[in-house]
């Protein structure tokens, strides 16, 4: 007996980080169930794992490792998969910025949400005249650890761990040191040597990292004031 044919439509998108085209399919009702169960648990770690599982199932292109994709790739992918599965519009309740109280429902077309890049952003951080630090984007695991750990407080230790996980290499004109070849302790020791100014530059890398963003205007029905609102990050579109 031949294997059954998959009857779901397939779509294509470009991964924001690499511009590589990948094929995907919408999620199915049984996969949506996994998401609903996770969401009703209100455990953000469970939600992230559910999102990861669904994305893995829906990517049809071989060789794409969800664990290694950057957080903004994952968010963009999920947004597109959800659009093709449920509907390409979401209604969000936006708090009008002029009074900070009035909430207005706004319909957002998911296909208009793009990954925004800052011109100031660079993966290369010049530490001094000699050394440059090349960063890589946090992936799913770092995203889960940093955003969804059970304790609410992110300790200094956690921050150091995230930063060291995002170091790709340190280099100068003659030599380069890959983070892959270093132990956690070596990376931590290297980070501890940095001055506060150098650490600020690293913070800048995370702050200016590409992110999902959508800007639109909203009019407060009570005051008549029109203001511009920016929604950033996946969760902003599903509150």
């Amino acid at each position, binding site marked *: 007996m031949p294997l059954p044919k998959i009857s779901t439509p397939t779509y294509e998108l470009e991964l924001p980080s690499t511009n590589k085209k990948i094929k995907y399919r919408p999620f*199915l*009702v049984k996969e949506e169930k996994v998401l*609903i169960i996770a*969401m009703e648990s209100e455990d953000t770690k469970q*939600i992230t794992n559910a999102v990861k599982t669904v994305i893995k199932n829906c990517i049809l292109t071989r060789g794409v490792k969800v664990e290694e994709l950057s957080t903004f790739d994952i968010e963009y992918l999920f947004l597109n998969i959800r659009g093709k599965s*449920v*509907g390409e519009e979401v209604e969000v309740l936006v708090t009008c910025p002029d009074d900070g109280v009035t909430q207005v429902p706004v319909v957002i077309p998911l296909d208009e949400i793009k990954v925004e890049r800052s011109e100031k952003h660079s993966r290369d951080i010049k530490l001094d005249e000699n050394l440059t630090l090349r960063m890589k984007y946090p992936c799913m695991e770092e995203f889960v650890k940093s955003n969804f750990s059970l304790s609410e407080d992110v300790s200094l230790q956690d921050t150091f761990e995230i930063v060291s996980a995002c170091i790709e290499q340190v280099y100068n004109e003659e030599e380069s040191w890959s983070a892959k070849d270093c132990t956690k302790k070596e990376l931590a020791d290297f980070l501890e040597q940095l001055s506060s100014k150098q650490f600020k530059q690293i913070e800048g890398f995370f702050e200016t990292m590409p992110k999902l963003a959508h800007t639109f205007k909203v009019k407060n029905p009570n005051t008549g004031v029109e203001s511009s609102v920016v929604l950033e990050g996946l969760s902003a579109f599903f509150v």
Partner: protein
Amino acid sequence: MSMAHVDLESYYKVNFALVQHHKYSLTELENMIPWEREIYLTLLKQFIEEETLKERARDGGSL
């Protein structure tokens, strides 16, 4: 969060009704795309409403 468009309670209630009263199987339902299931639900609601109207018209005519 509303990443999914239904809650768990209505998900199971609707699935139960579709399986129990409208001959769908759970496998069929779970392998649909969510918007597809929504379309079948809308069509089914329309069908039931039309049938109810027809029935009322018949009952009214026979009185």
